[in-house]
Each structure stands twice: as structure tokens, then as C-alpha cells.
């Protein structure tokens, strides 16, 4: 396993953990949703590095694409209760 891919994986894993912490600690809900989208996005790149392209496509298309949009869509409808 070449050095480069190991470094890329480690960097991506660190960004994922930081983004996950932001997702639960975020100041406001939109930032939390964006952080969760970032977690899914970097997870799909890690799936590519771990030689599973099918899962990478699914995670990218469904995990970061549709889930993030669903969350923002409902958040727009439920704006009032955001900060309680």
C-alpha cells in the first residue's frame, strides 16, 4: 500500500472525526447538517481508497446528497424551533 494512500486515508479520517464533533457540537443546526454532509463525503472517498467503489457511489449519492438535502428541506419547514 503506497505511502500516499495511507496519508490520504489518515487525513480523511481525522477530518471525519473533527466534522463529526462539529456535527453534534455545532453552534447552529445548519452548521451541524453541513458537518454531517462533510462526514458522508469524506467517508465516500475513504470507501474508494478501501477498494469498494459500489459503496462509495451509494454513500456519495444517498448519504451526502439526499440525506443532507432532506435535513435542510425539513429544517426550512421547522425554522421556528431551531434554537430551543
Amino acid at each position: 500500500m503506497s505511502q500516499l494512500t495511507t496519508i490520504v486515508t489518515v487525513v480523511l479520517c481525522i477530518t471525519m472525526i473533527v466534522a463529526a464533533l462539529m456535527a453534534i457540537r455545532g453552534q447552529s443546526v445548519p452548521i451541524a447538517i453541513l458537518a454531517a454532509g462533510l462526514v458522508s463525503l469524506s467517508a465516500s472517498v475513504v470507501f474508494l481508497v478501501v477498494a469498494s467503489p459500489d459503496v462509495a457511489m451509494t454513500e456519495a449519492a444517498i448519504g451526502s446528497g439526499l440525506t443532507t438535502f432532506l435535513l435542510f428541506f425539513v429544517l426550512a419547514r421547522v425554522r421556528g424551533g431551531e434554537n430551543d
Partner: protein
Amino acid sequence: MAYVVMATGFCLILIGLYGSLSNRNLMRMIVAFTVADTGVNLVIVAVGYMSGRTAPILDAAVPVAEAAARIIDPVPQALVLTAIVIGVGVTALMLAYVYKLYEAKRTLDIGKFTELKW
């Protein structure tokens, strides 16, 4: 390599579970669950990984004869495909619930639905 990805997956699950159980806002709970689901998917794919092998696609690069020696374990990938779509199904359902709960009580704080035992 597999250890790094698996350790990250387990950290994501722990962060997701902590976030969903300790937050009072409904939307934050769902966001934390999405993170936990991504963590579970990472662990599953990490278990199927064998270093130095390639993706389970039979083409010019991986002819059928040497397939068994050169590909990683395809079964966890098939399981993760199902797990991701189930996670999205449940998330969509929970979001519809949040909309209706907000419509009923005009608040997203789970503590306000106190007529229940919990």
C-alpha cells in the same frame, strides 16, 4: 489500513450515539444518527478489506482465473449497500415525524413532549 478505518468508524459511532442521546433538539438527534450510521458503514467496509487487493469487479485487469487471489471480500459491500438505504429510509421517516411533531406542539425540544413516561 483496515485498523485506521475501523477505529475511525468506531469513533464516529460513539460520537453519533453521544450526540443523539444527549441533545434535546430533535433535528440534532437525527443529524447525530446520520453520523452514527456513516460510522457503522465505515466499520463494515473496513472488516471486509484485505491490504494489497483490489475491488471485486471482473474485467481486463482482474480476469476470472485469478479473481479469488486478487479481490477483497465482496460480501460486506453487499451488506453495506442495504444498510445505507435502510438508514436513509428511517431518517426520512423520522424527519416526517419531526415535521408533524412541530406542527402539533410548535417546539423541537424533546422535553416538551412530557406527557410520556420517559
